[in-house]
């Protein structure tokens, strides 16, 4: 293909690709979620701030204060868990 035909083919492809993508910008899968710390059961976390695990599902303790889980935006502070010693604690948006 000559440069000119390639350029034309490219322009056509970009135009078509833009049409396909109309309304769908870079995916924001988690735009409506927030990271909530301290509420995930052992092995059920999405990730952690620091420490013993290299992420998804690797926390070793229930309600690890440094492990987080995605929850619907705005709902983190309303999540309450009961710790082993009977204490109640709410989820937080930052590691405890």
């Amino acid at each position, binding site marked *: 293909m000559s440069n000119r035909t*390639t350029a034309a083919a490219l322009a056509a*492809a970009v135009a078509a690709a833009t049409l396909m993508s109309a309304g769908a*910008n*870079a995916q924001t899968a988690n735009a409506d979620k927030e990271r909530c710390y301290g509420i995930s059961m052992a092995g059920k976390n999405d990730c952690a701030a620091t420490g013993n695990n290299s992420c998804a599902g690797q926390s070793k303790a229930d309600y690890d204060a440094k492990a987080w889980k995605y929850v619907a935006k705005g709902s983190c502070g309303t999540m309450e868990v009961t710790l082993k010693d009977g204490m109640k604690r709410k989820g937080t948006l930052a590691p405890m």
Partner: protein
Amino acid sequence: MPPDMRPLAHAQQSFRRGVLQARLQVPAAVAGLPGPSRERRFSVYRNNVKASLVAALKAKFTVIERLVGEEFFEATALVFVERHPPRSPVLAEYGGGFASFLEVFEPAADLPYLPDVARLEWARHRAFHAADATPVAIDRLATLAADDLHDTRLTLHPATAVAASPWPIVSIWTTNTFDAETRRIGPDHAGEIALITRPQDDVLVNVLPPGSDLLIAALREGRALGTAIGQAPASLDLARTLALLFRAGAVVGLLKGISE
């Protein structure tokens, strides 16, 4: 190394060997220590090291584990740990050689798609830990004149990876990740090219059109769009490839370049 460091280095090396090799042999440095049942105590240490490495592999290759079953996976992982011990102290970096190992691991030879599925899982793991960057939208590309497009280079997001396979690796990965009961994927199913990206916090897996892996490889080498197209087959669905690359957040920059 100063001469007085040698005994320590030697002791550390024999300890490391003792921990990782298949057969139990208590290293001299430990054998000389006082106290009861040195062999049993050293075995506890060995077991902990190996079990933690196997657990790390399990966490990264969950689909492989589901495909072969827990028992087979643990036995396989243990052989891998013994043959390919970690070279880095960072646990997150351990397991890069697992896919290639599966290729030559005789007991897994019946499942020829296993190594490529492992490559997909490893790419997801790498993408998760890759640097953050902000993807650009395809509209930016659309504003360029046709002649400029030809010389434009795309900067890929650090998390972007491509895994091409003669097996339907994305379909296999998807059903084994999301379905409680796996879907049957027939042997006539075509091969798939996986695009792995992480535009924000989540790792995404998409199926790319046939031939697009060659285009992306050329882009990664820094070739301009016009040149990169020449590296891909003429049958490539360019529009769909570009749409997917941008939608998945694989592109973070456009460089209007010098003509090649």
